[in-house]
């Protein structure tokens, strides 16, 4: 059974339809890349999967790990192992990063009937992840994302992902605005999670990230629809030729 099965998904914002029938199947063990021009609906798809209520699902279904994903609250989705690394992580002044992460991890453990981690266990885990991701410890004592640079915010997302250890990770343009070292660190974080039970969806503009996170499948999302799917060579073609040929196909199909 697929880990994620999206069928005919339609979603609207403020009454305007953004997703116009998405079909996507992701099996455990796979890595999928979603590419596409700005404004084509990639973040909308990611947010709908995470459960943001500003987006209204107007049709279709999403089965995740055998459950009707759309019926779950955002926190239930998180506890069931879904993780979204946001394109624009929000700043939360006054909430300490470590406190927040511990609360998140313990919420997840509680959901699965596991005991809370002790302070020592938690700190051990956190330090190990920081080291793998080459992130400075000072990040721990800062308020969540407050005053972080763009790159620091992205790293913090990956750090949270590493600590929460999700079954399905969705990375929404986590590579944008990062230098090559940071991209490598992000890729290391993602690749460390790779396993036959897990899957990753990488939303990106650039083929460059896909040199480090090699996808099994590449999909192109345009105007709210997946207009092409293929292997990693599709990303190379897009890099060379852009999206114009797909726009033409789409116009041709409409005629």
């Amino acid at each position, binding site marked *: 059974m697929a880990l994620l099965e999206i069928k005919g998904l339609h979603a609207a914002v403020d009454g305007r339809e953004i997703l116009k029938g998405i079909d996507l199947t992701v099996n455990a063990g796979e890595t999928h890349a979603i590419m596409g021009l700005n404004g084509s609906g990639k973040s909308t798809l990611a947010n709908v999967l995470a*459960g943001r209520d500003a987006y209204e699902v107007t049709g279709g279904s999403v089965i995740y790990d055998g459950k009707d994903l759309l019926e779950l609250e955002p926190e239930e989705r*998180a506890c069931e192992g879904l993780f979204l690394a946001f394109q624009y992580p929000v700043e939360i002044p*006054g*909430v300490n990063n470590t406190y927040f992460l511990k*609360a998140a*991890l313990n*919420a997840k453990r509680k959901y699965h009937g596991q005991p809370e981690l002790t302070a020592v266990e938690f700190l051990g885990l956190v330090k190990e992840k920081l080291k793998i991701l080459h992130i400075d410890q000072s990040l721990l004592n800062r308020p*969540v994302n407050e005053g972080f640079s763009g790159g620091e915010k992205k790293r913090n997302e990956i750090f949270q992902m590493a600590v929460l250890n999700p079954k399905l990770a969705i990375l929404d343009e986590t590579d944008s605005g990062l230098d090559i070292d940071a991209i490598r660190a992000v890729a290391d974080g993602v690749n460390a999670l790779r396993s036959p039970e897990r899957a990753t969806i990488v939303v990106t503009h650039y083929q460059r990230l896909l040199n480090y996170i090699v996808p099994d499948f590449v999909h192109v999302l345009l105007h709210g629809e997946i207009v092409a799917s293929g292997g990693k060579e599709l990303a190379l073609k897009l890099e060379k030729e852009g999206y114009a040929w797909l726009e033409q196909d789409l116009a041709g199909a409409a005629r």
Partner: protein
Amino acid sequence: MTELTTNSTAFVDRLRTLETKLPALQANALSRFLYLGFPEISNEEWRFTDVSKLAGADYANPLTTIEADLSYIEANRYELILAAEAAIQPAADATSVILFNGLPVAGEDQDPALGVSIRYLSSADSAAGEIADTESNPFTALNAALFPGTLQITATAGAALEQPIEVVLISGHAGSSAPRITSPRIVIQAGENSQLTIVETYISLGSGTSLTNTVTEALVSRSAIVDHYRVNDEAKSSWHVSALAAALDASSVFSSHSINLGAAIIRNEATALLRGEHAECTLNGLSLGDGDRLIDNHTSIDHASANCNSHEVYKAILNDRSRGVFNGKIFVRLDAQKTDAKQTNKTLLLSPEARVDTKPQLEILADDVKCTHGATIGQLDPSQVFYLRSRGLSEGEARRLLTYAFAGDIVLRLKVERLQTALDERLRVWLA
């Protein structure tokens, strides 16, 4: 001579009969009160705070209740001390003073080395209203008429007290059931270069109708440092009106934190006169509103000298149908050049029925000054709530964490450890 006021109630009529029974200074204050009357919402200063309920209560005769209170204290001193200790859980080496309805219970007449004296003076022995505004504030005038005595805390020049002086002000009915009005008064005199920390905690014994009308004056001499805290944790059946008047001499540092947790209606008026150069004044506040409670903070900082700084951060978290009022006046007089004044007022509305009225009022006559003010009113940010939920926190947890964070910076500003811990815990319970 007394002019007739518009509000003529049984209580006001009763006060009229007292004029001849009071010593001259108090009688003067009473005529001033009778002239001003209880404020009405047509008065700009009271526009959002309707005190008609508390003005209309049939309070017991404040002179006769003093006798009854004194014998109640005599008979129940130990219980009162226990109640005070239960409320504040003071540090072992803290100095504590307890007043019941403005009368002394324990802790006064101390001269702990270090040059600090804590004495209770009868109203006859203590001048009322040296800096508090008895002229235009009716409640302050009423306090000056009815106060049974003054708790006077004095630090001599150079004295430095590390531990806070904890003043617990209990209000209660002492066995009777008639509504009570009590008029505590505290005078803080910090000599040159002295250092003092004073915590006023207001609590109630029992839950009858009562009005606590309290006045604190702080005279902060040259280079003295005074940290003042007032915590209101009175019963929901209480009304509370307070005036804090501070006068800051050159190079002195004064701070006051107002923490509002209890009572049905609270009106705090904090005024600071910066009358010497290089003085520094901080007025901060945190109010937690729920039910139908109303919490009104009026502040006024008068920059009367050059080179002074003032900082002000008032925050309120309002739930249910509670209401908040904030009015922040800053005056910068003509020769108060190089003034640096900053005022911030932030309100978090947790319910659609809660509301706040906020008004900064800046009057700046000097030209070389830095004055900033800002007010924000809002709900929790849905994108922050979603972010936390997307990591596994329940909606309730997410909201609690964000609300706690909103209040957190005021909690962290409390320099008395006991207070910080107590408020932190209180917040968690309140939010749960």
